[in-house]
């Protein structure tokens, strides 16, 4: 195969890995609580800032900072769920959407207020590191993000299958009323699901800061991508979010090269619309 095409595939997969990483948390939240969290991008933004400040002030490498960020964002997720989501859990979808829209507005502008609009990024020894094999170039931080995405999904799948809480989450995602009747504490499980979802976003943020940069409105760039990935993959399938992310990444890489860099995002939005129309459960989702 043409080396360009191979490189495009590599680029696409690495990009897709990043997309998948961002979307895992959203899949969990969307799949279990059936809420479109418009503030998802802002969680990512906060995670990136957290990783940034940990590096800037204490010299903690972003990869290592996950030790702090994962539990921190779990707690943040639980808190947000209790304060903003839980009160409207039974409200009509429109109200739910707008609660998260409002939250996104608040978070974005608080970040602007506190940290200003400056761009921040982290320069580590491996920030620009590229691996070269067989004439192909693979960016090291992106590769790490890709591997982490897979690892995280594997870990989550095990968690959901083997632990009680995990099973509770799956039960809740499938049939709320039955789950309640089975003695599952619905509200606590929602909080945990949201917390785990947020922790995943936290991990994504830590992974992203060596590759990208953070500023208050960076979330809005990523949130729509995350939705596309989640829907494509199947809104209640973690494997789906990985595969969906990879597909979107590859499609973007190819259409950017062969059609136009200007339209590559539009192309995956069109795919998004087509999926919604013809297979709304996505590639791997269950009805």
């Amino acid at each position: 195969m043409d080396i360009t095409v191979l490189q495009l595939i590599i680029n696409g997969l690495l990009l897709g890995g990043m997309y998948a990483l961002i979307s895992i948390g959203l899949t969990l939240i969307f799949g279990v609580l059936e809420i479109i969290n418009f503030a998802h991008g802002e969680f990512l933004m906060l995670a990136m800032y957290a990783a940034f400040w940990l590096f800037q002030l204490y010299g903690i490498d972003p990869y290592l900072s996950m030790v702090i960020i994962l539990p921190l964002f779990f707690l943040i997720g639980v808190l947000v769920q209790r304060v903003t989501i839980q009160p409207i859990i039974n409200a009509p979808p429109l109200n739910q959407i707008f609660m998260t829209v409002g939250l996104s507005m608040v978070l974005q502008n608080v970040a602007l207020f506190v940290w200003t609009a400056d761009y921040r990024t982290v320069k580590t020894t491996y920030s620009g590191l590229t691996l070269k094999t067989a004439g192909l170039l693979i960016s090291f931080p992106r590769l790490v993000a890709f591997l982490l995405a897979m690892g995280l999904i594997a870990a989550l799948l095990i968690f959901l299958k083997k632990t009680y809480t995990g099973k509770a989450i799956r039960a809740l995602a499938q049939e709320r009323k039955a789950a309640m009747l089975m003695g599952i504490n619905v509200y606590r499980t929602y909080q945990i699901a949201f917390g785990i979802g947020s922790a995943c976003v936290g991990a994504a943020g830590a992974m992203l800061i060596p590759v990208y940069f953070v500023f208050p409105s960076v979330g809005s760039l990523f949130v729509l991508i995350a939705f596309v990935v989640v829907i494509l993959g199947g809104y209640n399938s973690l494997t789906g979010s990985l595969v969906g992310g990879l597909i979107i990444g590859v499609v973007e890489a190819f259409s950017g090269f062969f059609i136009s860099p200007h339209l590559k995002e539009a192309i995956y939005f069109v795919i998004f619309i087509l999926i919604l129309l013809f297979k709304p459960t996505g590639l791997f989702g269950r009805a």
Partner: protein
Amino acid sequence: MRLISRNISGNVLHPKIYFPFFLVVLMAILPLVPQNPFYGDIIVSSFFYGTMALAWNLVGGFAGQISLGHTAFFGIGAYTSTLLYLHYALSPWVGMLAGAGLSVLVAIGIGIPCFRLKSHFFALATIAIGEVLRFLASYWRGLTQGGVGLLIPFKPGIENLMFKSKTPYAYIALALMLVMLLICYVIRNSRFGFHLISLREDQDAAESLGVKSSRSKLTALIISVIFTSISGTFYAQYILFIDPFTLFSLGISIELALFAIIGGLGTVTGPILGAFLLTPLDVFLRAWLGGVSAGLNFIIYGLVLMVAVKYFPLGISGWVRTWYGPFLQKLPGGQRAWKTEEAMALSLVPARASDSGKEREKSPFFAVKSLNKRFGGLVAVRDVSFQIQKGEILGLIGPNGAGKTTIFNLVTGFIPPDSGQVVFQGETITGLKPPHQICLKHIGRTFQLVKPFKDMTALENVMVGAFARVQNAQEARKRALEILAFIGLTKHRDSLASSLTIADRKRLELGRALATQPDLFLLDEVVAGLNPKETEEIISTIKKISGQGVTIFMIAHVMKAVMALSDRIIVLHHGEKIAEGTPLEISRDKRVVEAYLGEDYLA
């Protein structure tokens, strides 16, 4: 979100009539008040956003389809009229129609496939549509100049929809808003409005009452899109500069929904209240706080939104409603009688079975032949055949999971059978889709888990059913009142369905379906969950219905009701018909006893 069915022939001197007119006059004077363009701009913006919010509300509030892509039509309208104006010197007054036409085409193309989606997914799809259009507008530089945008040279004149002062703009925007308001008002009190709201509340129930869901939603979307598109043209002629990022912005779509929510979703005046409050608020917040510190105004805006969503879900309109009525009463003339039809005697004209008058073939009235259905590996219905005679009450019983509700769903078009035939009055109706067709054929049904339209009153619920047979709202109201009397719910006619007891809800569901004048009435577990007294009452109601000549096919497993009502009974077990006969014969049938009670009980 209640509908208030009005009797239009009320007294003109009552504040209910003249106060709104007074408000309209106030609004008409408003553009003349401000001495400087800044306030003029706020007024123009308020009217303009009022129109767009009303248009959005038609789809998002009335029909319950949350669109977050309305900006697409706003942009199409603006670009179409602008390009036509710049290249062909076509007056924007004509250009706006072209824009609206194009928007309608796009809406039909999108709407038809997208309406199938559940609300969250529909919202996401609409976002994507807005984004795709933005990319196209920014990429297609040859047409739109891309990011550079299009500038409209300032040549004031009414033929160009361009004026030096804000006042003419304000009047045009006001006129547009009033037209949209009138349309919304008329819709809300009409058959179409009832249909939309019933679709929002429960699509399945609405379909079973003959509401054509796709057609209704599409009509609402088309009207909404026309006005959104015209607003786009207006915007272009007002701002005189358009670019893809401002026009196809997700922010606009969200803003429109915001106005409707804060104002009062699904109400007529709500969106206007929202637009009138939030437009100036945004301007002033930005002026006070935006300069002080970056982002402070948005933080407040966001918090307001979150609080409103949680604590004021009915919006400003909900709050206004609490004091509007008493307020009106205190105005001059407010004490006068309003509804003259209060005095109207409710004649107990029973619901006729059918007005159609067509002579149908006598045999068979209703027949099911070799119906089969499996779900994956589970065979739900296996080779079931039976007939129903005109005028009889046929009961369908069987242990849980026997397939009774599946039979209902197969017959009424909610799920398609794998094989088999359903014939009704000589016509094959197997798998007739969509479900509203079944209603048009004069088959009515109730649901096992009742599906009342919660935010409508009992009267309004029944009116939806009545609208299956009549177009006129007055007529529908009359019929609905008759039905309510027939089923004994007159005292609850103005109560919200959500406030009724289970027994009353079941009766409401009966009455609602009855209003569609079915020849064949399918009752799904209508007795379940009722206490003995309520059971007695519903049994007598069903007997009354049967007495009117309506053929009844009912699922039940409360033996008392089945035995008391049925002329004949069919017994289903594991998806197969195992017995058929009179209640007496059935009670003695060994297979039936075994199925219900198990082998050990065989006498």
